[in-house]
């Protein structure tokens, strides 16, 4: 294809330089031959010398042009390339030979003119050769014209092809350029976008940094201005992984204020270095937090600093623990003062009671013979009331004793505790003819013994107290085991409670009955509620009015 195009192109371009000259030459040959033929006619007509010379000149000219065709030469007639096409060369040589024959016949004729005069045969022969020659010349001319047309066609084809190629090329270049341009534009766009994005990211990052700084400042502000002390530590363990010490990593201002210790004294130091007298059990406690991740909350007195702290410790990272604490020394003092106050009031209130009872008894024993029944009745009322007042004070005292930091707990067999309680209540049980069923093999609970006894004693006492007239109390004590707690119950067949009082009965001094009907202080259930609440449990009642009540209380396992 490429070769064809190249060939077409070459032959096409050859046309301009070669074919024109060759056709010119052939036409010159034709002209010269025709002219020499005409001059020979003149010779024959009589004008010999001039005409012969002219004819000879024309023939020489014809030879010259044939020579140009066959050999090619750069002359004053123009630049001629020699013919290359073998067919053409063959035709031209044939033409040359015919021209030679023509010349020889011409010479012959001229020579015979001298001797024999005009011979028609020779003339006929000469005319025939002339005709042949002209024919051959015209053949060559035709061939050249033909070739030229073919080459022109080739050239046109090549031209068209080239035009197509050029157009294609232009289009291609255009497309490429467009593509490139588009690509460039896209690239630029991408670059721009990337730049914008990067700018935005930078901006966002800067903004975030600022926000972070702000947030950090805020936290730092909070951290430093919170009234609670805060400290971050890492735990130090021995080779067996047992916590033996801890190091201060960060503390806030309140920490400094609350402990009187300064940052410089603590940061980077271990508690052994900073506070040699620190409680050992604290290290264990904090160690557990840092190693297990389980948060704790407790109150702690430090002999070292002579203070009481409420402490929350949690694990922000394994091996570390953070402590948030507040100084509750004042609260502790206030608590103690309140406790003292309650004791004092209770005891001081009891003293006159004791005396009232004492003197009433003395009056009875020493002057009994002088008193009538009415006087005895009044004395009874006095001692009855002192007894009631005593109960009230005792219960109040008990209530005030149930603090958040309650007494020690141990694993208790509920059955054993119940045996003791029933033993204490045996007189009442006998009086009331009560029947008490206790579930066998009740589980153990981790509760303070006194508190559990108090709960049962109160509930069983109530169950017997609020019995229906003429119906001996029948009490059932049992439990249900839940995944996380134990629900215990005391069920009776007593008078029952109306639903609207289910909550009210647990409020202090709430009584549903007249004192003369059911004695009591109205504090018993409040005490139970507080005890159970302190254990993290709850207490409630379900009842069928007139048929009986069931008191439930849930305590953690």
């Amino acid at each position, binding site marked *: 294809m490429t070769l064809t195009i190249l060939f077409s192109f070459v032959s096409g371009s050859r046309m301009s330089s070669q074919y024109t000259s060759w056709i010119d030459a052939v036409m010159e040959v034709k002209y010269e031959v025709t002219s020499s033929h005409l001059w020979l006619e003149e010779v024959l007509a009589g004008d010999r010398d001039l005409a012969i010379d002219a004819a000879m000149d024309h023939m020489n000219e014809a030879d010259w042009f044939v020579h140009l065709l066959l050999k090619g030469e750069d002359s004053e007639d123009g630049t001629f390339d020699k013919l290359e096409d073998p067919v053409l060369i063959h035709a031209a040589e044939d033409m040359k030979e015919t021209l030679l024959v023509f010349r020889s016949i011409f010479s012959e004729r001229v020579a015979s003119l001298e001797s024999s005069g005009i011979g028609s045969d020779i003339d006929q022969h000469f005319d025939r050769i002339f005709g042949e020659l002209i024919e051959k010349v015209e053949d060559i001319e035709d061939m050249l014209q033909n070739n030229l047309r073919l080459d022109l066609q080739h050239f046109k084809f090549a031209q068209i092809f080239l035009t197509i190629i050029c157009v294609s090329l232009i289009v291609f270049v255009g497309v490429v350029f467009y593509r490139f341009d588009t690509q460039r534009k896209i690239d630029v766009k991408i670059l721009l976008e990337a730049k914008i994005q990067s700018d935005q990211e930078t901006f966002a990052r800067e903004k975030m940094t600022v926000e972070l700084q702000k947030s950090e400042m805020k936290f730092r502000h909070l951290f430093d201005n919170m009234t609670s002390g805060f400290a971050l530590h890492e735990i130090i363990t021995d080779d067996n992984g047992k916590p033996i010490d801890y190091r201060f990593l960060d503390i806030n201002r309140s920490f400094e204020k609350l402990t009187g210790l300064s940052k410089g004294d603590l940061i980077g130091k271990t508690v052994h270095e900073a506070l040699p007298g620190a409680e050992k059990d604290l290290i264990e406690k904090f160690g557990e937090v840092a190693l297990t991740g389980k948060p704790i909350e407790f109150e702690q007195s430090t002999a070292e600093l002579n203070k009481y702290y409420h402490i929350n410790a949690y694990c922000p990272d394994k091996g570390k623990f953070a402590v948030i604490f507040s100084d509750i020394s004042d609260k502790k003092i206030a608590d103690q003062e309140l406790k003292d106050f309650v*004791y004092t009031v209770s*005891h*001081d209130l*009891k*003293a006159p*009671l*004791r*005396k009232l*009872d*004492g*003197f*009433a*008894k*003395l009056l009875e*024993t020493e002057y009994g013979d002088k008193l009538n029944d009415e006087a005895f009745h009044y004395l009874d009322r006095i*001692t009855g009331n*002192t*007894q009631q007042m*005593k109960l009230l004070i005792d219960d109040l005292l008990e209530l005030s004793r149930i603090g958040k930091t309650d007494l020690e707990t141990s694993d208790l067999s509920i059955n054993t505790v119940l045996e003791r309680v029933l033993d204490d209540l045996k007189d009442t049980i006998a009086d009331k003819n009560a029947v008490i069923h206790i579930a066998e093999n009740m589980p153990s609970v981790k509760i303070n013994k006194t508190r559990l006894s108090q709960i049962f004693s109160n509930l069983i006492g109530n169950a017997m107290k609020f019995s229906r007239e003429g119906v001996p109390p029948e009490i059932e004590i049992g439990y249900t085991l839940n995944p996380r707690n134990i629900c215990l119950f005391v069920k009776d067949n007593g008078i029952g409670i109306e639903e609207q009082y289910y909550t009210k009965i647990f409020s202090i001094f709430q009584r549903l009955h007249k004192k003369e009907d059911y004695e009591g202080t109205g504090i018993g259930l409040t005490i139970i509620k507080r005890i159970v609440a302190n254990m993290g449990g709850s207490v409630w009642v379900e009842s069928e009015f007139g048929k009986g009540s069931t008191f439930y209380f849930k305590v953690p396992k």
Partner: protein
Amino acid sequence: MNSTAIEILLVEDDPDDIELTQKALVSGNVINNLHIVRDGQEALDFLYRKGDYEDEKTSPRPGLILLDIKLPKVDGTEVLKQIKSDPDLLRIPVVMLTTSKREEDIFKSYSNHANSYIEKPVAFEDFISTIKGIGLYWLITNTMPTRNDG
């Protein structure tokens, strides 16, 4: 021994309590010579025979001390401390007789070697039996060498 009167020193500031204690001792059949002082200072003066209590006859060495905790001037705990740190007095049984059931008071009393700690019951009948118990305790457990004070 039953006929021997016990010298009892009652350290009590409240007149009602004094009267009731006296009655309870009588009702509880504890035969005694009761000496009454009204505050801690008087108790110490009585024991060391100072001031109003110089006379040995009216201020004999008691065989039992009933000591209230809350007292004017010098309180009961302080009196107890002094008695128990004095070689001459430390063998006298001291019964802390009080309305306080406060653990702190009980602890303090026993740490200062009180021989007994008794909360005064509200009911008078209970009080009588308590006093009776104290008398009995003293009668049975008292191994103090009897001092001949002439």
